């Protein structure tokens, strides 16, 4: 089959690799019909996540048709499914509590050794996201082996378009959980850093959850425009002092909750960020948490910080004092996708949530490297890239 593989920083290629097979009883094989490039794939593309090896198949947002099932799978051949990026057994202590992204059993035992010293506990398995999370071959391919297929994949009714439901795999539940972690009540102001797909879905979710106003912060005019369409007020940080503006837009109180949908590779020309970026490039500090620092400074006393943005290592100059003295709460984590898919599918069916506005480009899988380069370098126009395996390159 054809698959997008990693060969080094800013070097991804579509290669021919062996087709996957059923290996464990609960596996299914999915023929991919749509797969997206995620903002977090850019962290892999930039080489800032350790444990990615040459030849690894990337991609964790995908859907398709079931073509083969193991004896323990509950799926049927021919069904259309969206597959969560988190691999979860459904039976361990964490899965039983619906903490699916903390599954004990999905990361192979020898791979768990990689993250146990780094984080104190091993991570669970994810598709196509480095050997720290299991080294599972990802979804930017013609076929994918899906472990625990009786737990993760959600069956999509015929008649719904791929574009409507593909993002149930990651970014829609991620934006939703980000808003849920912000613990929104009526009258709240929520500030969202980053108008990438997760930030935009967080804006949409926060509105549905009853926020009085949502303020989105970014520097790409087109992305800010999309945030405005989702019902947010917007701040362009290249024009405006963000902290001052947030205070003035909230009657001097500050936002009740803040969402960092940026993560470890913040943009911006603030001194702390320039320093962080240099350290990241030379490999002595993994995270550049400029947006998070600002969010912590902005949030009102006793407020909430929700952190869906991806971080991998250690942060310098973290405003721990502000966190403690202002009495803040911080909630974060990889998304417990399986907890949200059913409810969000219903909301899409009922027309409450639209995800198609996000897609700016549809490319054949063969053109995935071009998709990565543009998603990284032309962020204003390239808001979301969906790859279609099996379609001809143009």
């Amino acid at each position, binding site marked *: 089959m054809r698959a997008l593989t990693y060969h080094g920083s800013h070097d991804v290629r579509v290669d021919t690799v*062996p087709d996957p097979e059923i290996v*464990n*009883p609960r596996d299914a094989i999915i023929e991919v019909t749509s797969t997206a490039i995620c903002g977090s794939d850019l962290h892999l593309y930039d080489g800032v996540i350790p444990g990615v090896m040459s030849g690894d198949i990337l991609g964790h947002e995908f859907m398709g048709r079931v073509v083969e099932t193991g004896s323990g799978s509950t799926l049927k051949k021919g069904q259309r499914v969206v597959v969560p990026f988190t691999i979860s*057994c459904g039976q*361990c*202590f964490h899965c039983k509590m619906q903490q699916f992204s903390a599954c*004990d*059993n999905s990361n192979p035992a*020898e791979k768990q*050794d990689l993250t146990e010293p780094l984080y104190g506990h091993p991570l669970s398995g994810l598709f196509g996201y480095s050997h720290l999370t299991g080294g599972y071959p990802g979804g930017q391919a013609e076929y994918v082996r899906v472990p625990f297929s009786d737990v993760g994949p959600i069956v999509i009714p015929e008649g719904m378009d791929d574009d409507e439901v593909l993002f149930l795999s990651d970014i829609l539940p991620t934006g939703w959980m980000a808003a849920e972690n912000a613990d929104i009540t009526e009258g709240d102001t929520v500030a969202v850093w980053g108008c990438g797909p997760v930030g935009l879905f967080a804006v949409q979710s926060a509105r549905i959850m009853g926020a009085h106003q949502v303020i989105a912060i970014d520097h790409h005019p087109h992305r800010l425009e999309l945030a405005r369409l989702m019902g947010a007020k917007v701040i362009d940080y290249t024009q405006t002092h963000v902290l001052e503006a947030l205070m003035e837009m909230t009657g001097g109180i500050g936002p009740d909750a803040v969402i960092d949908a940026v993560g470890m590779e913040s943009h911006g020309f603030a001194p702390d960020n320039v320093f962080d970026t240099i350290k990241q490039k030379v490999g002595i500090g993994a995270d550049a948490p400029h947006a998070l620092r600002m969010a912590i400074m902005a949030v009102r006393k006793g407020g909430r910080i929700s952190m869906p943005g991806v971080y991998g290592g250690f942060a310098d100059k973290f405003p721990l004092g502000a966190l403690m003295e202002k009495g803040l709460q911080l909630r974060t984590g990889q998304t417990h996708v399986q907890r949200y898919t059913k409810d969000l599918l219903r909301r899409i069916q009922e027309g409450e949530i639209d995800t198609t506005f996000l897609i700016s480009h549809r490319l054949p899988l063969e053109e995935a490297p071009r998709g990565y380069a543009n998603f990284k370098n032309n962020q204003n126009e390239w808001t979301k890239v969906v790859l279609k395996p099996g379609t001809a390159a143009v």
Partner: protein
Amino acid sequence: MTYRTFEEDRRARRARHAAQPGGAALAVGLGLLLLGGLAARQYAGQQAPRRPADSAPGRTARRRRFGDYAVTGRSVTINRPRRDIYDFWRDFSNLSKFMENIESVHASGDITRWTISAPMGHAVDVVTRIVSDRPGEEIAWRSTEDSEIDTEGKVMFRDAPGARGTVVETVIAYRPPMGELGRIVATLFQDEPGVQARRNLKRLKMLLETGEIATNRNRNDG
């Protein structure tokens, strides 16, 4: 009102300074103090009463060796009834289903012969005798004189709190071939019993909770 002038003040400060021991004497004094301190610490170390034992399992001690034996072990919580896990373990032929390092197991009565993979493609024969078997609670073994490795160990099963299933705890003591150097070499090859115990218990948990052992292999020939 009388003022003390700057000059008077300086004289006063110099007078106070002169009353103190000279720089050289100060240095010698400090040096003696330091030496005395070190000696006192050495002496106190020898005389100090043993600290009272804490609540932690012995295998987590900073000291990793107990006589000639290295002690290792690991706990895991498995979401299954205690008796089921005991029964599964007690049938030693099941152990090779999740212990990567076991090449073969032959049990007859209390005596079990194990062929265990060792660094650099070698294998060792271990022969053990069951020294304690309390159904649902504990299985303990000790190597016999026929064994190539001098080892003893036990696995214990107890109910986990809050309906979380069963805590499975293994403790293994062994005399590393070639001593500490051998232990370090085995660790490098990831064949050291501590490394193996950690991974094996995770695989046991996967097998008993999910019915399969997680792998990222995409093919059966891979």
